[in-house]
């Protein structure tokens, strides 16, 4: 168990390190010169050179990387070129918004997903299962932007049920924010629900085929008991991992969704940053979302280990 945790944590750190390297390299590849971005046009060569010095752009790559990393770890993420403001608070605020959206989406998606997946799995091949499979398949097939546009125009503008844009007042209470968050959350939830639901279903079916289920049945246990006490316990374990993975998907999905709904989230900030070639902003944003994702996976792994006696007691 200890070894397992140690291993997971080690990998977590390793992954982040490598990712940061990759991202840093990719960003350095970006064309468009930094000086112009910072100083604006018509700045004298002298100023430019000074800036290069200051930003250490003339140092060898790995030195630059090392410097950036150490500063990054100390929370000094530098200033954005395009928005003349320190990056950390900006990114953090946006991250908060994105997470708010994501968490609502998951709250909407996961419970029904697991329930439906379970039911479908238990009724494999029955009409319900077929229906579920088909619908979820279609849901998975609808891009977020299509889904978003449909929801906006139908739910918000035709039926006037909810607010179309997701731009939430800065210090709005959750209550005020909610009506604006529902549509984008739904958009994200749709795919999430289908995705998690399908995998839960597969897991349940797989578990049902296991021999211990027969043992349980032949003990004379009621089917209900067999399902909830024996099957679920094992079938839901993998779901934890699935959810963690789907967070990665969510981050990508949100980029689109936030743009469709004009929601001030990290995704939208990233698209902007990349369009602006705003290197430090890109670095900060990507790294933070990577960290979130990796963290989610780490937590999932540990949770999995904690809930799974086979790992817990080894």
């Amino acid at each position: 168990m200890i070894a397992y945790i140690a291993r997971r944590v080690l990998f977590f750190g390793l992954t982040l390190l490598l990712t940061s390297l990759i991202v840093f390299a990719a960003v350095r590849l970006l064309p468009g010169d930094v000086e112009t971005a910072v100083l604006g046009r018509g700045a004298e060569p002298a100023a430019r050179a000074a800036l290069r010095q200051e930003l250490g752009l003339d140092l060898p790559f790995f030195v630059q990387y090392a410097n950036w990393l150490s500063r990054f770890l100390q929370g000094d993420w530098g200033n954005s070129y395009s928005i003349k403001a320190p990056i950390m608070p900006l990114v953090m605020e946006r991250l908060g918004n994105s997470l708010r959206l994501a968490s609502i989406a998951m709250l909407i998606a996961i419970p029904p997903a697991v329930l439906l997946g379970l039911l479908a799995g238990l009724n494999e091949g029955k009409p319900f299962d077929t229906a579920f499979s088909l619908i979820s398949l279609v849901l998975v097939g609808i891009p977020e932007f299509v889904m978003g546009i449909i929801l906006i125009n139908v739910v918000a503008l035709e039926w006037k049920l909810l607010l179309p844009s997701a731009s939430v007042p800065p210090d709005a209470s959750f209550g005020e924010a909610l009506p604006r968050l529902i549509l984008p959350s739904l958009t994200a939830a749709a795919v999430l629900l289908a995705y998690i639901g399908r995998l839960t279903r597969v897991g349940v079916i797989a578990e049902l085929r296991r021999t211990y289920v027969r043992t349980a049945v032949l003990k004379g246990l009621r089917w209900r008991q067999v399902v909830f006490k024996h099957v679920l316990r094992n079938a839901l374990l993998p779901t934890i991992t699935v959810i963690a993975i789907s967070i990665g998907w969510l981050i990508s999905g949100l980029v689109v969704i936030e743009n469709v709904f004009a929601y001030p989230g990290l995704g939208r900030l990233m698209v902007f940053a990349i369009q602006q070639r705003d290197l430090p902003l890109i670095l900060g944003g990507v790294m933070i979302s990577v960290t979130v994702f990796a963290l989610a996976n780490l937590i999932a792994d540990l949770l999995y280990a904690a809930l799974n006696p086979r790992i817990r007691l080894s």
Partner: protein
Amino acid sequence: MRATAQPSTLKPIQTLRLNLARRGRLLRRLWRDAPLSVIGGVGVLFFLCMALIGPYLTPYDPIANSLRDRNQTPSWAHPFGTDNFGRDILSRIIHGGRNIFALTGTATLVAVGLGSVIGLYVGYLGGWLDQIVMRLIDALLALPALLLTLLLLGALGNSRFTVLVAIVILYVPIVTRVVRSVVLDVKTKAYIEAAEIGGESRFHILFREVLPAVLPTLAVEGALRFSYAIFLVASLGFLGLGVARPEPDWGLMVSEARDWYALSPHMLFFPSAAIVALVVCVNLMADGLRRLLEYSEVD
């Protein structure tokens, strides 16, 4: 019960070598168990044909404009109507489909190819190489797909080729992982060890002995990757990335149509429908492939 295996329960890869009748049997069984997946396969074929021959069938140029018939609602002349430039939406969708297939198809193939080669070696050789590669893959996979793509689009310039590269970079790790897991399972099989002690070359072992076992999984994975690729490209198109007007790109069409939603909704509907239909069909097909794979594993 260990009923000795019947011709009909051979692995897909074998059935390819076996006669049509057997393949027919498999398909009929698939049709009985999961008609949808067959329909999906047919759907994909249909889209493919459309992409291949469609352009020669459509009377309209997807880019040329004709003012007189702009923003026309669907009619016999224009089954899907026309857009604000009077371009026939059907033709645009067909050409767009062609682009999508060309782009995502190539990307997927390359990714799957590379991924399987890496996966084969890494999985088979194991050891430090394996560890390093896996860590690298973890790192890559920790990057949310769309962000990585945007990053590359920023780095390598906003072009179809970049998108292709992006997709490859995105999917190679995933494919590698899948292949590797299969290899790890297969390489412990006695027949691989038999090959080793038979003095077989590494190449032979990997590509003659191991690869066949990977292929079925690879087929399924490939199909899935394909559908995700379509998804991604569409999303990029919507964000106006990877394509330039007036190219017929489904995602781009959707985002263009957004301005006209109120005036001519069909502009939005058809491209969206196309995307959804294709992705769903591919997913269904993948599902079908998976089933075929399962059949082979039954008894």
